[in-house]
């Protein structure tokens, strides 16, 4: 795999982190529009609706209005942006991230989620955001590697949905 330090790959990672930042900005925009009574807040809020339950009690507030996603989702998005941005700043970090990091980073969120399911007192909104940050960050680092690879190689051979080759078969032989 080509390293992330490749110029095109790094530019793609930067573009992805800007996209993640705009997703975060969209959250604040919806609340700000709603607070000022300007139209369009519903449209922005609806864009996030398929991704989150959007319960005001489980969400942080901005400009006196609830954000369009819950505190946990906000932590994941913010962590994702952080991970992508870190991978752009320090490409070696993105290359070091692996599945084990992801499992460890997911643990705090899983424990908090299970606590809720089991009826134990879960974390409040702000701690829930903080607990979700590591998972988002590691996912962002892994995502950065994927984006860099896509930029370097493209989704080559992407549509081999019904290729004729099975594992173990010899190519080009009937």
């Amino acid at each position: 795999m080509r390293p992330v330090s490749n110029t095109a790959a790094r530019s793609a990672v930067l573009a992805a982190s800007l996209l993640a930042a705009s997703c975060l900005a969209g959250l604040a925009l919806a609340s700000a529009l709603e607070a000022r009574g300007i139209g369009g807040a519903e449209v922005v809020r609806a864009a996030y609706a398929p991704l989150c339950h959007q319960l005001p009690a489980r969400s942080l507030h901005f400009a006196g209005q609830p954000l369009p996603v819950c505190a946990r989702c906000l932590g994941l998005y913010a962590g994702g942006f952080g991970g992508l941005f870190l991978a752009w700043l320090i490409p070696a970090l993105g290359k070091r991230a692996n599945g084990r990091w992801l499992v460890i980073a997911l643990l705090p969120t899983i424990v908090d989620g299970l606590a809720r399911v089991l009826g134990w007192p879960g974390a409040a909104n702000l701690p829930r955001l903080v607990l979700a940050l590591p998972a988002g960050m590691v996912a962002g680092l892994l995502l950065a590697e994927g984006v860099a690879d896509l930029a370097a190689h493209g989704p080559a051979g992407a549509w081999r949905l019904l290729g004729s080759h099975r594992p173990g078969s010899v190519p080009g032989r009937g």
Partner: protein
Amino acid sequence: MDDRSPDMLRSTLTAGVAFGTLGAIPYVRLINISCCCLLVTACGFLAAYLYSRECRLARVAFRPGAGATVGLIAGAFYALSQTLVGAVVVIAVGNDDVRRALGWLRQFAPPESMEQIDQLLSQPDAVHPAGLVLEFFMSLLVAAVVSTLGGLVGGTTFRVAPPAAGPQPTDRDIDREPPSLPNV
């Protein structure tokens, strides 16, 4: 991706149908709402894992870019199976789990959320063909983005390095008869 790459159908179909069915099962489907589309993300992730396994068996490289593609296709299968199984479930048992969850939330919900919850509770359980098509496209839109991201993360996690460069067998090598044992 090299010419010997295995086809993506088996891995994408397995992940898409498995998680699409889970996403339509009452109570289980609430995971998607409460955990940031976890089932859709996991669908792309699982598809990437299954495909990486096939690539490993076929001794070909598996790159994160291919993971994104696998995630995208698995997302399409997810949307299709979730819509179809979801319609069958609504016809058979209705949206009982969603109603019960909303009723439970209503106890703790602040006054500003009451109206939203009541509005959702007042919607009747029914399957309309137009609603089904709309639901499919909404599901497809979400799955196309989220499952692709899951596939991309899975592709990076389970990447398979290209096999070490060595002399590739030519057609002549393959056609050649195996050397016979000397007569003793």
